[in-house]
């Protein structure tokens, strides 16, 4: 009983950490620009696929991983520069469509370049599972959780203790006021795309040894990250992390105890329930309407 529960919990927390990184990415961009970036999932895919490509190409592993984070960040910057900035004053629906277009272009290019196959990365510290109270924990899960925790702490430090982070926060509260005190909001927007792409890619790399990767994994991972962001209250960093873990755990429990074929439906049932009963998410603030 306990072993089974722990087993589901371990796998839930592991995928949940990836959703949390994706949800943080959504949150960063949403705060900087009010854009819901539907290309977020593609950054997760890019991270995993590029890591596979570079390690199989014989690059030393640390260099391969750094490149697999840096290149998606560059792609994020390009998406912002080429697609979002020129259309900045458009309606939210239009911006959403633009990011969907960007996701199709990224996914399509990877499909043409690397094919439709499924790829894997070797686990970072071997495949010898740890035994905990009868449940097994893969060392890779520890990597996922450890790195995600470090990222969350680093982000907290960035937003609360550095001028760049504070500039981003100020922009999310009030764009015009931020501009008036001399913050370059275009630069903030660019930085938020680079950071959220890097976060997504990092999640994609970490989880690839466990869940494998292919050109189309970004769709579901991105949508679930989005659900996680909404569950936590869109725009709330802590909420994004808690939302990600919650979505991951509920999904794993549902798959284990209820039905594995309905695993993918669970996050989307969750989003409906949250919208009905807690429309601002778990941590969202109140909003007021200005006339």
């Amino acid at each position, binding site marked *: 009983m306990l072993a089974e529960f722990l087993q589901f919990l371990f796998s839930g927390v592991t995928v949940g950490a990836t959703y949390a990184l994706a949800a943080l990415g959504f949150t960063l961009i949403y705060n900087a620009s009010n854009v819901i970036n539907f290309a977020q999932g593609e950054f997760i895919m890019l991270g995993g696929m590029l890591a596979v490509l570079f390690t199989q190409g014989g690059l030393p592993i640390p260099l391969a991983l750094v490149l697999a984070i840096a290149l998606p960040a560059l792609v994020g910057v390009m998406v912002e520069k080429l697609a979002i900035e*020129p259309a900045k004053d458009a309606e939210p629906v239009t911006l959403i469509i633009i990011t969907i277009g960007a996701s*199709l272009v990224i996914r399509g290019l990877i499909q*043409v370049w690397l094919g439709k196959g499924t790829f894997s990365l070797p686990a970072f510290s071997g495949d010898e599972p740890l035994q905990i109270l009868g449940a097994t924990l893969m060392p890779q899960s520890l990597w996922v959780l450890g790195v995600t925790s470090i990222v969350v702490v680093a982000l907290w430090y960035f937003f609360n203790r550095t001028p760049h982070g504070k500039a981003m926060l100020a922009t999310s509260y009030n764009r015009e006021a931020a501009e008036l005190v001399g913050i370059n909001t275009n630069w903030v927007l660019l930085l938020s795309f680079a950071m959220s792409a890097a976060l997504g890619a990092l999640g994609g790399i970490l989880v690839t040894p466990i869940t494998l990767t292919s050109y189309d994994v970004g769709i579901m991972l991105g949508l679930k990250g989005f659900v996680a962001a909404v569950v936590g209250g869109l725009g709330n960093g802590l909420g994004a992390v808690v939302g990600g873990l919650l979505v991951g755990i509920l999904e794993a429990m549902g798959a284990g105890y209820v039905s594995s*074929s309905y695993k993918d439906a669970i996050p989307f049932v969750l989003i*409906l329930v949250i919208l009905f009963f807690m429309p601002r998410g778990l941590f969202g603030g109140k909003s007021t309407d200005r006339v």
Partner: protein
Amino acid sequence: MTKNPFIGLYIIMTVLLVLPFVLPNSFYVDLAIRMAINAAIVLGLNLLIGFAGQISLGHAGFLGIGAYATAALPTHFGWHPLLALVAGAVAAGLLAAIVARPIFKLKGHYLAMATLGLGIIINIVARNEAAWTGGPDGMPVPAMSLAGFEISGDKHWYWIVAVMLSVSVWASLNMMNSPFGRALRALHGSEVASKVVGINVVRYKVAIFVMAAMFASIMGSVTAHYVGFVTPNLADFFHSIELVTMVVIGGMASVYGSVVGAVLLTALPQALAAFEGWETVIFGAILMLSMIFMPKGLVPTLAAKFSKAG
């Protein structure tokens, strides 16, 4: 605007009348039918996106409800196809109302999230309940018959779809200028101001969403009958995105834009068949470029150019 807004409708009806006599083969008839079906769905969706300012990212789910009602109810329970079509539309409408009521009390893009979830759940149910839906492979659809007369094949469905499209365009044009349509446009402009002048904001938004959902369900039933087969792909996320794209490319809040957007995007995969493997990239690039350079959509942008030149 002194121009008669119904001129476009007459043009569409003329084209629909002439088309069957000039199309060289059944491939083009099939394409024309699919364009007209999409145009009718997009008209409904555009009322929601363009006039109520709300986006549905799961509209293909409603299409799926209609299509599967049409396939499953006659197959498993021996219902009359027409009854199945109505049942599907009622189910879609009820579902839309249940989902929409709490959500429209909130501001922001919550409907996008809720419909996204709803659409994906419907798709997953269709894939998993193989005993009822045939699972991922889909299921055949029993033929529609009225008073002993079986409706099947390109010829029959072409005329049915042509009439449905003409009526939809006519109804949309009328609705835009009715008190209901003016209320919807006021909503999109400013919700607070509309409330002040006495418009029941939530009720109007729910009404338009329910209508769009029922309409999608009916067209889903028609699609199912015409194709003779339903698969879960009809109800998947990508199809929902395609429908939204048709609205946005044609022009939000533009009746004729809906038709133009549906026609162009239905033809696009055919045009892209030559670029095998690159379809996704090109489709995405067209989406991005048209949204960046024509955020208002094709028809409103061209109309503005045209009236300036004239």
